[in-house]
C-alpha cells in the first residue's frame, strides 16, 4: 500500500508524497497556486508566459543547460497553466530523484532575462495564433468571459496578442515575486520516493526562498445566462459551448457532479452520445464538470455540420430538460460508476498519473485522497445526491456560444 507523507519547510513550502515502493519511476512536481484568475487585465496571460520563461534559465543555468540536464536524466518533463494553478513536473527513474528536484527547484527561481523574454514572447504569440487557427477559434475563452462576467474565473489563460504583445518584463518580475512565494508552492511527489531525502534536498534548494503573503481573493460567481453567435467564415464545422454552474472544488457533491456528467455526456454510451453522436447528428458532444476554488462549472461541447447545429442545440436542451424533470436511473448510475472506477485505477498505475491527482488535491483542498478513497467516494453516490446536484445546478441555465460559418442561428 502506498504511504502518504508530508513536511513543511520553515518558509512555508509544503512537501507531500505518495510513496509506493513497488513503482518503477518517480514523478515530481512543483504546484504553484497561481493562474489566470490571479491576473489583472493589464497582465492577462502573464502566468502562462511565466511558465515558459521558467525554462529559460536561472542565474546558474541558461536555457540550454536546463533542457540538456533534464534530457540527461531521461526525464519526461513539462509544465502547464490553467485558471488557478501552474504546474512544473518531471517523471524520472528513481536514481534521479535528487538531481531532478534540484533542477526543478532551481528553475523555480528563474532569471527572467529581458532578451529571453523577447524571444519567448514570439513563441507565445505563435501559440496564440495556433489556437486562433483551430476550433473553437478562441470562442471558448469568449464564452468563459461572458459566463463569468466580472469574476476572476472569466480571465483567459493565454491572454491576447495585444496583452501579451504589450507585456513588459518588469511586470512579469513583479507578478513572479508576489505569486511564487514558498507559501504558495507545494512540492509533490508520487511513485518510488525516498521521502527523507526529498525533504533534505528541498530544504537545501528551496529553504532560502523568501516568504511573502500572497492570498487569493475568492468571490462567489454570479454567472450570466445568454446566447452568443460568433461568425467564423472559414470554419467548416459549427461548434457549440454551453457553460452552467456546478459544484466547486471543496463541495461534497462534486463526485455526484462527475457521475452526472458521465451519465449525460461521456464520450461514449451517454445520453448525449446516443441522442447526437451515434445517429450522426454531431461529430462530437460531451459534458464535463470542472471544479475551481469557490465555483464550479459544467461545460458542454458540441461540433457538427452547420446544417444540424440548431437542431443539435434543441436536442441538448431536451436531454437536460428531461433529466431535470425525471432524473437518471440506477442502471445509468451503476454504469457511470464502473467507467469512472476503471479510469481511476488505470490512470493511477503510472506515478505521473498519481502526481497530478495527489498534487492537485493538495493545492486545491489541502487533502490527501488515496485511490481507495476516490473509489469509495464514487461508490457512495446515490440517486438522491444526483437529484440534489440537478436541482442546485440546473444545466438548462447556461450561457451558450456558437462559432462557425453560420451568420444566424435560431435558438
Amino acid at each position: 500500500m502506498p504511504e502518504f507523507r508530508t513536511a513543511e519547510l520553515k518558509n512555508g513550502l509544503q512537501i507531500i508524497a505518495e510513496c509506493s515502493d513497488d513503482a518503477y519511476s518517480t514523478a515530481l512536481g512543483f504546484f504553484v497556486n497561481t493562474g489566470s484568475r490571479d491576473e489583472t487585465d493589464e497582465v492577462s496571460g502573464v502566468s502562462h508566459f511565466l511558465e515558459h520563461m521558467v525554462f529559460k534559465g536561472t542565474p546558474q543555468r541558461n536555457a540550454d543547460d536546463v533542457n540538456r540536464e533534464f534530457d540527461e536524466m531521461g526525464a519526461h518533463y513539462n509544465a502547464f497553466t490553467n485558471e488557478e494553478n501552474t504546474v512544473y513536473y518531471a517523471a524520472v527513474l528513481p536514481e534521479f530523484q535528487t538531481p531532478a528536484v534540484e533542477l526543478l527547484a532551481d528553475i523555480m527561481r528563474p532569471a527572467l532575462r529581458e532578451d529571453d523574454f523577447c524571444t519567448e514572447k514570439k513563441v507565445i504569440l505563435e501559440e496564440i495564433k495556433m489556437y486562433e487557427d483551430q476550433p473553437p477559434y478562441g470562442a471558448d475563452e469568449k464564452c468563459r468571459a461572458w459566463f463569468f462576467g466580472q469574476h476572476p474565473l472569466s480571465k483567459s489563460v493565454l491572454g491576447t496578442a495585444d496583452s501579451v504583445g504589450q507585456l513588459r518584463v518588469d511586470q512579469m518580475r513583479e507578478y513572479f515575486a508576489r505569486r511564487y512565494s514558498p507559501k504558495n508552492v507545494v512540492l509533490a511527489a508520487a511513485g518510488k520516493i525516498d521521502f527523507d531525502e526529498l525533504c533534505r534536498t528541498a530544504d537545501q534548494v528551496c529553504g532560502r526562498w523568501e516568504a511573502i503573503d500572497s492570498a487569493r481573493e475568492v468571490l462567489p460567481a454570479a454567472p450570466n445566462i445568454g446566447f452568443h453567435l460568433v461568425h467564423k467564415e472559414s470554419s467548416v464545422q459549427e461548434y457549440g459551448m454551453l457553460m452552467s454552474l456546478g459544484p466547486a472544488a471543496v463541495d461534497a457533491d462534486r463526485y455526484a457532479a462527475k457521475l452526472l456528467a458521465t451519465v449525460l455526456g461521456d464520450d461514449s454510451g451517454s445520453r448525449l452520445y446516443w441522442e447526437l453522436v451515434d445517429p450522426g447528428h454531431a461529430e462530437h458532444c460531451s459534458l464535463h464538470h470542472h471544479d475551481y476554488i469557490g465555483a464550479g462549472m459544467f461545460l458542454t461541447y458540441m461540433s457538427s455540420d452547420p446544417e444540424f447545429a440548431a437542431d443539435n442545440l434543441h436536442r441538448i436542451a431536451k436531454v437536460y430538460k428531461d433529466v431535470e424533470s425525471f432524473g437518471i436511473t440506477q442502471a445509468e448510475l451503476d454504469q457511470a460508476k464502473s467507467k469512472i472506477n476503471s479510469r481511476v485505477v488505470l490512470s493511477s498505475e503510472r506515478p505521473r498519473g498519481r502526481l497530478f491527482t495527489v498534487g492537485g488535491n493538495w493545492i486545491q483542498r489541502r487533502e490527501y485522497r488515496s485511490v481507495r478513497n476516490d473509489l469509495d467516494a464514487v461508490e457512495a453516490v446515490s440517486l438522491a445526491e444526483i437529484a440534489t446536484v440537478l436541482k442546485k445546478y440546473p444545466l438548462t441555465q447556461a450561457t451558450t456560444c456558437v462559432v462557425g460559418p453560420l451568420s444566424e442561428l435560431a435558438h
Partner: protein
Amino acid sequence: MPSLESAAMTILVPAGAVHDSTDKCGLATLACEMMLRGCGPRSSREFITDLENLGVQRGESVGISHASFGAATLSKNLPAAIKIFADLLRRPHLPADQLDAGRLVVLQELSAIDDDPSHKVMLELKRHHYPDPWGRPSEGEKPAVESMTIDDVRAHYQHFFRPNGTIIGVAGRINWPALRDQIGELFADWKPIAAELPAAGATGKQLEHFPHESNQTQIGIAYPTVPYRHADYFRASGAVGVLSGGMSSRLFTEVREKRGLCYSVYASYHTQRERACVLCYAGSSSDRAQETLDVTLGELQRLANGIEAAELARLKARVKSSLIMQGESSAARSGAVARDWYHLGRPRTLEELGKLVDELTVESINEYLRANPPQNFTVVTLGPAALSVSA
C-alpha cells in the same frame, strides 16, 4: 506485469485502408464504424453498454494496414471483454438501417479534419510522400463515403476480417493458460481468407501547397528511412531522436528556442512493414514560415554531418526511462507487443530493447547517416501563401 491491477489488449486486423479501391476511399473506416453497431446477441446499444459495465476503456482506429481495436480494464473483467470482442470481430450485424448514421459519423469526422490545419497537412504529407495506395488517408474522401452502400461495407468485412494476419496483443495482470484457452475457444474455428496486398504505385508531388485562410502556415516535411524490422532501425531512429526528442533536441533548440519561430516543431518516425519515413512538422506565422522551413530543412541536412556523444547519451537516457515507464502501463505494453508481432513476428522484451539501445554508438549512427543522409524531401504546406525550397 504483476504490479498492475489492469489488463489491456490490442487487436490488429489486416483490414486497413490500403484495401480501399480508388473510388471507395474511406470504406475500411466506414466498415469499422458499422461493426460497432451490434454484434452477436447484442444490439448497438447493448454492445457499448455491456463493455462500459465492465469498465472497458476502448478505442478503435483504422490505419493504412490494420483496423485496430484497443481495450483496457480491470484484469478481472478482461475475459468477459474478450468474449464481446470475439462477437465484434466474427459476428457483426452491419445493419442496413444504421448505414446513414454511420456514414454521417464518418463524414463529420472528415469535416473536423478540414478545421484542423496541422492534422490536415500531415495527412497530405503522407499521401504525397508514400507510393499510392500506401499513403492514403484512412479517414476517406467525402464523395466516396457518400456513395458507399451496405453491400460495400459487408463485402469489405467478408474479404478482410479473418484470422490469418490478425494479432491479439495482451499485457498486464493476466492468467496466460486461461487466456490462451479462451482465445482458442473463441477463435480456433474462424476460417482463413486469402488476401493480397496492393503493389506500391506512384508517389505524389515533392512540393505541394494548399491555400488556406489562417494566421499560421503549416509545414510538413518527409524523407525516407528504413522500416522498423530493418537491421539499421535503431541507428536510424536514434538519429531522429537527436533531431526531436526532449527539449535539448536540435529542432526544438534551433527553431523554437533560439529563433522563436514557432510553438510546435517536431520530427517523428513513421513505419509501415515495407517502408518508412521521418515526418517533420512546424507551424509558424505566415510571414515567418519561409524562414521556419529554411531553418528546419537546414537542420535535417546538417544531420548528415553526424551526431555528438552528448546527444547520444541524452537519447539513451530518454529511451531507457521510456522503456521502463512503458512497463507501468498495460495499454502501452499491449500495443507494443501487437506491433512487434506484426513487424517482427515476435515481441521484443523490454530487456532486449534496452540492450539494443545500449549497443548504439556515435560511430555506428554517424556511419549510417553518412550512407543515408536525409534527402529526397517531400514538402507540403498549408496556409495563405506557397513557400519555396532552395536546391
